[in-house]
């Protein structure tokens, strides 16, 4: 490939992986990291590369699969979002001690803002705590380059390496000239060495010592040393920046006329910070401004912090994204000049996100609310979190927690003798990811609640990746399948029934039956099965269309717009009644059964 092409940061990293001859890549989808693995699958197909590429059931499994490939001498990578790394932190921490054979890259994408995450946590801090070196790219192009450098680093020191892009790298597009792809000629050879690969605590102590020795050398490794980006004019002050903050700072310095006078050091390896850099930078300058997202990880490593302006000193905010306008203000104030004024938005907010028109989850939540009006509704991570708009979501903690929280609510209330109805919701992909162990626990402890598995045959929120039930994997290749009902029953659940939420009255009856069962008998599982409306990968039959129209019987009570909240139902302020936005209506027909005045009528297919 010899033409510049527009690549998303995630696709650029994916290309870096195939350029580096990576043999195995495993991932679980999560914004902003999802397109890394789909990108790899795409390049794998295009260049016909013999690779193993998989959507794993969760991040822990993904990391362990890739790590084993590395133990066998292959180059391997795993990609996830930052909270996915929490799930994978167990093997991650341990692998740092054991080290690697083939290059091993852990891509953990952070989301300062946050834009689409539960936390703003800094994966670099996880790297620091695991004692794993971490690289922090400023752009799609640099991310691609650091994938390759990361493998070299990993193999030079037999250590896992983290690559930590942020949303602004993952979801930026850039014109990129991809490098050549040479298929790997490695074959897996696992060399037994139990005292290393199965090290007991006694050996772990020695491995920890070795890890420290590696880190000391990595802190002097030339290819990842800090780079001075602008002409080295003698100056009293300097900026030290990593990640996309360095890219913002570059543009800002030009615009403020400071490019020639205020040195900008870019750190591509924020941990371990190069020891000579730490030693000399504070001798060289009276004061440094440290710009990084989200935690002060570089800042922490400066022994002598009184000349450092950053997060610890309160100069740079600890919370939120370092936007370019924020950086402009910080740099201007650091340099002692006036910052140009930043215009503020004339209106805040705008539309809140909502389930798509025709989304089956909307019908599920509507039915749940009818079946258990006073219930507690633990929910989980996915599109269906938006059930909060319908009053069908009371808690969202992390992947899989809906099931354990439902059990926890049951046990807690049972102590007081009065147990409310508890109806938990979890998506199909999330159920496979983290819902099974808590379901087993709930059965064993006799926790009584209803678990609704919202089975829309996809991982919708992140762009319709497959689930283990579908029979196809990354890049569309065929896989074996796991039967959801069988799995639920095998966990010991006595009530497990399937319904189609779009069939609203029958589904509401099913929900009522399940709620009654949970009150008297035990845990009930309802599988709400209907495909996601925007999923272009769906291969089965779609439910029949029912075209709806609003008759003159509509008196503008707004029951449907507030209680059912389909975005295609719009209250017309002038006419004082509801109309259907035919541009976005999917003809699902569910609203026909929602209007208490029967003013929404079926008018054909």
């Amino acid at each position: 490939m010899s033409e510049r092409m527009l690549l998303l940061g995630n696709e650029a990293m994916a290309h870096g992986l195939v350029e580096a001859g990576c043999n195995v890549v495993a991932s679980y989808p999560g914004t902003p990291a999802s397109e890394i693995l789909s990108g790899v699958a795409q390049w794998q197909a295009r260049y016909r590369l013999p690779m193993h590429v998989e959507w794993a059931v969760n991040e822990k499994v993904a990391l362990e699969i890739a790590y084993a490939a590395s133990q066998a001498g292959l180059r391997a990578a795993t990609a996830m979002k930052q909270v996915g790394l929490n799930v994978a932190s167990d093997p991650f921490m341990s692998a740092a001690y054991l080290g690697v054979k083939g290059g091993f890259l852990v891509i953990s994408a952070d989301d300062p803002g946050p834009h689409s995450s539960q936390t703003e946590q800094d994966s670099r801090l996880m790297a620091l705590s695991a004692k794993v070196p971490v690289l922090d790219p400023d752009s799609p192009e640099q991310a691609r380059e650091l994938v390759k450098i990361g493998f070299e680093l990993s193999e030079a020191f037999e250590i896992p390496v983290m690559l930590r892009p942020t949303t602004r790298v993952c979801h930026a597009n850039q014109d990129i000239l991809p490098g050549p792809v040479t298929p790997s000629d490695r074959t897996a050879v696992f060399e037994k060495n139990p005292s290393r690969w199965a090290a007991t605590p006694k050996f772990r102590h020695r491995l920890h010592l070795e890890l420290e020795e590696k880190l000391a050398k990595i802190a002097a490794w030339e290819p990842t040393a800090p780079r001075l980006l602008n002409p080295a004019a003698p100056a009293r002050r300097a900026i030290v920046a990593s990640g996309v903050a360095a890219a913002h700072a570059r543009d800002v310095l030009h615009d403020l006329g400071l490019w020639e006078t205020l040195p900008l050091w870019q750190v591509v390896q924020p941990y371990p910070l190069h020891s000579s850099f730490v030693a000399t930078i504070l001798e060289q300058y009276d004061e440094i401004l440290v710009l990084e997202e989200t935690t002060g990880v570089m800042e922490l490593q400066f022994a002598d912090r009184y000349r450092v302006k950053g997060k610890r000193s309160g100069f740079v905010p600890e919370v939120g994204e370092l936007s370019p306008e924020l950086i402009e203000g910080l740099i201007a104030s650091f340099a002692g000049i006036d910052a140009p004024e930043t215009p503020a938005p004339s209106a805040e907010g705008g539309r809140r996100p909502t389930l798509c028109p025709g989304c089956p989850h909307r019908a599920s939540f509507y039915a749940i609310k009818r079946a258990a009006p006073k219930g507690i509704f633990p929910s989980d991570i996915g599109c269906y979190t938006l059930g909060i708009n319908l009053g069908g979501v009371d808690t969202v903690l992390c992947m899989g927690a809906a099931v354990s929280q439902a059990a926890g609510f049951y046990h807690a209330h049972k102590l007081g003798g009065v147990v409310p109805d508890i109806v938990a919701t979890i998506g199909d992909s999330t159920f496979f990811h983290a819902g099974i162990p808590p379901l087993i626990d709930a059965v064993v402890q006799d926790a009584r609640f209803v678990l609704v598995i919202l089975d829309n045959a996809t991982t919708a929120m992140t762009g319709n990746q497959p689930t283990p039930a579908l029979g196809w994997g990354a890049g569309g290749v065929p896989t074996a399948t796991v039967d959801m009902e069988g799995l639920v029953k095998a966990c010991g659940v006595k009530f497990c029934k399937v319904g189609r939420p779009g069939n609203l009255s029958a589904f509401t009856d099913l929900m009522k039956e399940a709620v009654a069962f949970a009150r008297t008998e035990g845990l009930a599982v309802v599988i709400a099965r209907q495909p996601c409306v925007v999923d272009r990968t769906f291969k089965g039959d779609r439910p029949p269309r029912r075209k709806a129209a609003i008759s003159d019987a509509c008196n503008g009570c707004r029951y449907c717009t507030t209680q059912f909240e389909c975005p295609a139902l719009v209250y017309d302020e002038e006419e004082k009644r509801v109309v259907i936005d035919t541009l976005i209506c999917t003809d699902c027909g569910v609203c026909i059964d929602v209007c208490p005045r029967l003013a929404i009528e079926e008018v054909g297919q």
Partner: protein
Amino acid sequence: MTGQQLIISGVGGQGILFLTRILAETAIGQGMPVMTSETHGMAQRGGVVISHLKAGEFSSPLVRPGRADGLIAMKEENVAIHRHFLRPGGWIVVNAKAAPADLDGHPVHAIDADLLALELGNPQSLNLILLGFSLARLAASGNLFCTADQVIGTIERRLAEKGKLRDASLAALRLGMENAAG
């Protein structure tokens, strides 16, 4: 023109990513470096989404408030939400029945693209109708870094193997262009 910064704004599901990509690929076709920044995740479900597009020598993928040369708003309400990105005199293209008032002297171009998309029987064509309209209104006066012909070239290249989609896309683009007179 050496560089241009644009904001494209709307709600999830309106095809903003595709519109941004077409413009960015057109920039590459002209040998310009380009960076864009997109909204993914929860907001794509009907929430406010924004793309930044910077063609020219830039490092940061984000446009700072007060710096954008133009704003393409796929919903009228987004003008108020994202207008602060515009530099003084920066233009606005908006999908609205009538041009909103009180825009601090920003030149504004309005088109009822919802109506045209319905007439075309293709709700997904909204983005390209708006793009065609923008090109016809702004490219000739040098207010947009690319021309309609260059964008047509990009669409033809990009959708070369998807005949139907290519034809529908070009039809939408032309419909927007035709509605730019007056």
